């Protein structure tokens, strides 16, 4: 499989990344080099193979539903780009 400029622009939009016009072609070329290398996988028949998500096949560990974390809002917000009255500020979302 290979991608062209418009695929790259679509994926970039999904990733919230801006790719400028000048470099889009070059980016597509490098991504294609990588996809070509990845495509070596397609030569192997894996129909009966179980996918592996965790090296030790571990499942999600559960714990009691209790509050264990302290409120650290001030410490967390001290490093935020913009806050007001205990809230994180972002540009206006709804007009």
């Amino acid at each position, binding site marked *: 499989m290979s991608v062209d400029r418009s695929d790259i622009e679509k*994926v970039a939009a999904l*990733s919230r990344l*801006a790719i400028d016009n000048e470099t889009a072609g070059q980016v597509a070329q490098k991504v294609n*080099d990588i996809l070509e290398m990845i*495509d*070596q996988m*397609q030569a192997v028949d894996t129909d009966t193979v*179980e*996918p592996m998500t965790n090296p030790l096949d571990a499942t999600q560990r559960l714990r009691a539903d209790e509050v264990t974390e302290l409120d650290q809002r001030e410490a967390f917000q001290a490093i935020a780009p913009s806050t007001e009255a205990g809230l994180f500020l*972002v540009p206006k979302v709804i007009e």
Partner: protein
Amino acid sequence: MHDMTVSALSSALAAGEFSSVELTQHLIDRVKTMDGDYNAFLTLCEEHALQQASNADKARAAGQVHPLCGIPVAHKDIFCTNGIRTSCGSKMLDNFVPPYNATMIDKFDSAGAVMLGKTNMDEFAMGASNETSFYGPVRNPWNTGCVPGGSSGGSAAAVAARLAPAATGTDTGGSIRQPAALCGISGMKPTYGRVSRYGMIAFASSLDQAGPMARSVEDLALLLELMSGHDPRDSTSIDADVPKYSASLNNSIEGLRIGVPKEYFSEGLNPGTAACVEQAINEYQKLGANISELSLPHSPLSVPAYYVVAPAEASTNLSRFDGVRYGHRCDNPTDLNDMYTRTRSEGFGDEVKRRILVGTYSLSAGYYDAYYRKAQKIRRLIQQDFVEAFKSVDLLIGPTSPSPAFPLGAKTSDPVAMYLEDIYTIAANLAGLPALSMPAGLVDDKPVGVQLIGNYLCEAQLLNAAHQFQCATDWHQQQPVQGDMV
């Protein structure tokens, strides 16, 4: 003092030959004088380190202490450190001062170790040469025209240049072992889940694992003992006892069964590197090990499978960098989408963006089965090869990287060539197995590493076998020639 291993320093501190404050000050002076040549440190924690050293000296005077009490250690700038900038080698986190410690940092603190500083790395640990760092490349102490390897390049260079006796690193596809090999030191990636990932900035969560880097395997054992153990804050952390790794180092390896995977001696392997690995195999034969050749038939697929799994997980992990809660935010955003897009485009470097694009593509509608699911199936096949191999052998041996350190800039324009640097290290990450690299020779005055891979949770056996090699050889004692000695 700077030539001493952690074990030797620990004994010297215990014997009162010098204090931790004297040792720490000496290394701070060395970093200040010499690191201009290497760029291994992003942050030197002068005040913090001297305070910790002074506390360590007091604790030692008061009684029994941990063997690492008062030992200066450099930490990769991927571990969150409370009140100390943690950049992950990225502009995105250039202003990030974490409000908490990684579990790993807490463990070093509780032992009374000294945090000397935070080391340079490839941006978000994505690279094999340390050239993707926002703060510029690290230079290899053996040859400053060459790369130190990556992504834990700063940690490897700091230890090799005798700026720190030991350092921490992380290894997602070879990021501890490959720089350890290229810088002539020892480095270990434990079993996936052995060391807590809490507070370690995530790259590919099903592969990431932290480990120690030092100048001897004996030191790796000491460090790993402290770093390992269950952490309720990391849901993938293994709940198993931590053996006393140092206690079994001197066991005999007579009769140890070592397998040589024939795929690890493929055509891309530098002949000089191959000769060093052959020599190491002969050494093991002399030590009484039984050597046999075997096959890991799916190992040629490790790089392709890895470059689906790792970017896919990276693209999801890195979606958290949005300019809302911490890190970089672009100036004067016009709306929310503009803020996300410009923040991320300004904050991430080219290689990180490339991996996010590949990862997003492979996870997008219509491609998931052909890429991510396919890669997970290949991953299973790669693991099964190892399971099969460990039925007849105890350990596997091979090269760590295809060739010694290469010149700066040699592979930066060709991502796939760079990715092939990790051709021998990636399989252990995909399978989640413990593996280490240690020095095994020199080619063109540059170090070569040999890699040992063990079965799940068999770190003690790996360290034992590696220590026995270091008792019989002196490759790990070779050091780079340095101009300006402090």
